[in-house]
């Protein structure tokens, strides 16, 4: 929060000309900056309106049943979103499941363990991971990670954990598992850098108090750092979820455009975002385009809900802790 400065009372009236100029200048800059801010708000509204507007033919034709219907048949113009909602939920949830403990661990390492000199270097390397464009990560995912997953990881998982439905099925180079791994790589740097900042914000007195009581470092973390930052960490995780749900490009490249609802991670699949990215160019009929944008509308609603929840929690956290975002 910036410091608020009140107008300075002057004892002598300024020359008239300057006063007018200053008043116009103040008004002008205030108005200009305010207009830019209002434009951002209007933009957000316009995005929501336009998406629902393009989707409206599909919304009026299929109604809410679209959300619970399976199958995507372009030939007979029968479309349903359930397969894709399933794909989105499965990939995001699993990516989050893997990414959350890893991110917290990285955050802890960077805030509590790493040697002073290495701290900033490792922290910036982890953040650089977030700078890799998703299309490059997807390219790597399909040509390097995919073959490894298909020929090594999946057969291994199948052999040892095949009794779990998740690891049943025949291994292949593209599929849900590759998408989950790529999403994990995308979420971890975002979540872990937020976690690191949260952990660094824990008051030193509390940490040292725990040490003085004889706690080991891990006991201090479990007893002080994690409880103190719990709300903030959950906001970070939800922000990561928002990222995973909305990622289109890298997922399109690696998930293999499959159909249906499967438990197997080896199967190919599709998410809301990857369906749009993969099919929009080749969409033949107006109703198919509208249906694809209907998917985008669902994605928009989900991502708004997720983001607002995260922001709400994060704001409450920084309010509780008195400042420090």
């Amino acid at each position, binding site marked *: 929060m910036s410091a608020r400065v009140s107008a300075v009372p002057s004892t002598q009236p300024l020359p008239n000309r300057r006063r007018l100029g200053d008043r116009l200048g103040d008004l002008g800059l205030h108005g200009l900056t*305010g207009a830019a801010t209002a434009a951002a708000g209007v933009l957000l509204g316009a995005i929501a309106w336009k998406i629902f507007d393009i989707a409206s033919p599909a919304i009026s034709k299929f109604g809410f049943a679209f959300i619970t219907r399976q199958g995507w048949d372009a030939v007979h113009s029968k479309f349903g979103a359930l397969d894709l909602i399933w794909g989105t939920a499965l990939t995001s949830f699993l990516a989050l499941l893997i990414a959350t403990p890893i991110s917290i661990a990285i955050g802890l390492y960077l805030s509590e363990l790493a040697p002073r000199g290495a701290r900033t270097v490792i922290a910036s390397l982890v953040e650089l991971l977030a700078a890799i*464009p998703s*299309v490059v990560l997807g390219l790597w995912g399909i040509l390097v990670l995919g073959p490894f997953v298909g020929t090594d990881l999946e057969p291994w998982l199948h052999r040892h954990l095949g009794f779990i439905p998740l690891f049943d099925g025949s291994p292949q180079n593209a599929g849900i598992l590759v998408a989950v791994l790529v999403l994990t790589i995308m979420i971890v740097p975002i979540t872990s850098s937020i976690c690191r900042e949260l952990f660094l914000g824990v008051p030193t007195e509390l940490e040292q108090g725990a040490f003085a009581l004889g706690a080991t470092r891990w006991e201090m973390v479990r007893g002080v750092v994690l409880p103190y930052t719990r709300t903030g960490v959950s906001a970070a995780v939800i922000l990561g979820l928002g990222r995973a749900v909305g990622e289109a490009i890298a997922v399109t*490249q690696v998930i293999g455009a499959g159909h249906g609802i499967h438990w197997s991670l080896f199967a190919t699949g599709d998410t809301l975002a990857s369906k749009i*990215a993969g099919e929009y160019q080749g969409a033949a009929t107006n109703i198919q385009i509208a249906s694809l944008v209907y998917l985008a509308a669902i994605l928009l609603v989900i991502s708004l809900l997720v983001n607002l929840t995260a922001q709400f929690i994060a704001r409450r956290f920084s309010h509780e802790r008195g400042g420090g975002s």
Partner: protein
Amino acid sequence: MAVDAGRYALTLSRRTRRRKLVNLFMQALATLAALAAVAVLALVVVSVAQRGASALSWDFFTKNAATFGESGGGVANALVGSLVIVALATAIAVPVGILIALYVSEFAPPRVADLARLVLDVLNGLPSIIIGIFVFGLLVIGSGQAAWKGSFALAIIMLPLVARATQEVLALVPSTLREGALALGASRWRTVLGVVLPTSLGGILTGTVLAVARAAGETAPLLFTTSIAANAVTWDPRQPVLSIPVDIFALSESPDPADHARAWALGFVLISFVLVISLTARLLLARYRKRLEG
């Protein structure tokens, strides 16, 4: 009196030893997680460099893509396309982003500032494919693709990034500077334009560079708004152009290994640009913040 040897012994009790072991184990896990993240970064960068660097040559950068159906050729069209799109997007997003940040931190009443921050955060969290469809629906339907339409989409991505970075730097400007200017009788707008903005220029610049690095790699907003088949170099933003990320996306979906080689080479170009730029900007930003805070 017999002393209970076990109770006062200086060796660690079993319980303490277990606590120490758990502690060590957890520390090892945390270290391992950090190492794994760095290893993945190295793995991605090295495998892109290995596969991409060999295809780079003078011709690769200066020749156009081969006509449709043939393989080979250079990527000059995609390079120039990316340059035009990103430059124009920066020109749109930076002034607006700075204005928003100025409003939020210098003019807005606290509640309005909070709302504006929320809008920016939500805008930042929107999936980029949604922005692509929005611009497609708003500008492309009925009138065709063009580079400036892609720039508009990228500008929406960059806007919250620039505004957020600028806000953070503005918050670092010491309030004594503002008060000093006001005490000298300068008006609000002169204080902002003459004192606050110049002081924060370095930070704004690095924030902008980071936003450019992000925008240069974005694919989804450009997928529908710019062409995937434009194979001539054009600097005209009214023409449909190809861009590096979209080209990589299209090539990676192709079954032809020659296309994959081109995708790797382009990926190497993109990743080098993005990583070098964001690393430099980060270093400069850290130095700048230290100077301002110190």
